[in-house]
């Protein structure tokens, strides 16, 4: 039976204002069960207040083989980070 169940990815928002973060995955036979399984597996220690469930098959992932061509070019372009400005102390943490 278990082998027929689909895989779902679980995203949890720990508190209002933050974004959902990937927490892990669950098996379930339908979306509602996936949500409940995620609740039971990943929020039993008050880890969150909102859940997103996505079918693992629906996630479009980049290919690790293509890592160099996708992400390599950005590595030597440090000027894209706004790290060359001097920030006055009064501004505080940005």
């Amino acid at each position, binding site marked *: *039976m*278990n082998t027929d*169940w689909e895989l779902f990815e679980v995203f949890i928002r720990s508190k209002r204002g933050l974004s959902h973060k990937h927490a892990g995955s*669950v*098996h*379930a*036979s*339908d979306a*509602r*069960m996936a949500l*409940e*399984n995620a609740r*039971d*597996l990943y929020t*039993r220690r008050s880890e969150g207040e909102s859940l997103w469930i996505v079918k693992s098959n629906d996630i479009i992932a980049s290919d690790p083989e293509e890592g160099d061509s996708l992400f390599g070019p950005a590595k030597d372009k440090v000027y894209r980070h706004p790290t060359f400005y001097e920030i006055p102390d009064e501004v505080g943490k940005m």
Partner: protein
Amino acid sequence: MTDVYETVENPHFQYVLGLGDDSLILGQRLSECLSKGPALEMDIAVSNLSLDLIGQADLLLGYAGKIEGKGRSADELVNFRDAHDYRCHWLVEQPDRDWGYTICRQFLFSSYQYLLFERLAKLEDKELAEIAAKALKEIAYHRRFSAEWIVRLGQGTEESNLRVQNAINELWRYTGELFETTKWEEALAKEGKAILASDVEAEWVETIDEVFAKAGLSKLDDFYMVYGRHKGHHSEYLGHMLCEMQYLQRAYPGAEW
């Protein structure tokens, strides 16, 4: 011999004891599923239900001990009473023959417990009302979880439908006892210390009918019902459960870790 349906010694204690025993015994039953669930996810789900119920039992039996006034703690009530002093319903003692039984027992009980605790949460007996209000959130989830599984199994395969229907056919005879009321409970209800289970029966039937209709399952009409908890009568299963549950405290009284 006095009629236990008319009068009992310390009725307030007996009433709260019965509530606590239901949560305790069902919690213990579900804990037996640990590592035996049909999937890892279900294993954890059922363990969570078990922990919720044992948490309720701890509060309810703690309160029962306080009402009794003999200095018995929740642990003592759990470990040093024999089956005939237990006041749980027969339904919660029934074993897990398969996942259909586990789900069916949970659905029948949680639907009842929800309606009862919803009313207990508004009692004049503030201490019981507070315990009930806390438990109600847990029970709402138990009811939702089990109701969805009833539909899933009922509408699943021919095999899953057959198995959950078998469970209903077997467990239905224990549902009458849920709504049985006694004279002394009526007196307690007048004092704001109890809710009569018979008051929630109609709404319970509606819930069951609605979910069974969605699931393509049927209940049994005019089936004979089994009663006994008020007399200290239980199914053969309770004694076996207590043997295992109480073993450590009976062998090493007062052991702690």
